[in-house]
């Protein structure tokens, strides 16, 4: 499947919208609104409110996440903000500060 990669030296300040997978190795500030999967790699920094189907965080996210399917916080990720999703997974070693809402 086609997907978009925001490379490690890239900084996006604004709004990303669309309909395909997004891999973030760099920095995104502002707002992300997708109907697909987002992966924040260990070097990735997201300072944005995020709307998506699924998100997997290995890096750093500051902002609220709203996922229609699943949000997963992996080991060594850093997340500050509220998460709202039907399925939320937090791995051992993840650091997280915020509210969790699984009611949908």
């Amino acid at each position, binding site marked *: *499947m*086609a*997907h*978009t*990669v*925001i*490379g*490690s*030296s*890239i*900084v*996006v*300040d*604004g*709004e*990303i*919208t*669309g*309909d*395909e*997978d*997004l*891999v973030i*190795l*760099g920095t995104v500030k*502002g707002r992300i609104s997708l109907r697909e*999967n987002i*992966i924040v*790699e260990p*070097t990735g920094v997201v300072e944005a409110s995020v709307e998506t189907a699924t998100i997997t965080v290995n890096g750093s996210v500051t902002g609220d996440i709203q996922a229609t399917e699943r949000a997963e916080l992996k080991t060594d990720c850093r997340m500050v903000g509220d998460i709202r999703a039907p399925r939320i997974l937090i791995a051992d070693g993840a650091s997280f500060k915020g509210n969790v809402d699984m009611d949908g």
Partner: protein
Amino acid sequence: MAQGLDSSSPCVVGPQISIRGTLVGEEDLVVEGRIEGAVTLAGHLTVAQNGVLEANLDVDSVEVWGEVVGDIVASRSINIQKGARVHGNVTAPRVIIQDGAAFHGSVEMEVKLPDALAKSIRH
């Protein structure tokens, strides 16, 4: 799902993605989708056939197969390919416009003018 990418994977804005705002970076970028705003890149920018940029571009070099509406400044070269549509002013030491490209705007290259002409422009 896209997974297992390392930092050497190319930076791509895919066909279903739209970015509104600024994009700054120091690596090569391929745009198949849409960017509105500004792009500042210390690297090579490729605007693919279906890519649309409504943005001012400040890059090392750029190759346009798709559509650019906005001014382009490149420190090395601007290459407007067959089938591309560019609307704006372009500035670079090397500007290449291929047969079959649609371009509307002004071109500025580093041109060494004849002395007499250079003087008359200056005064």
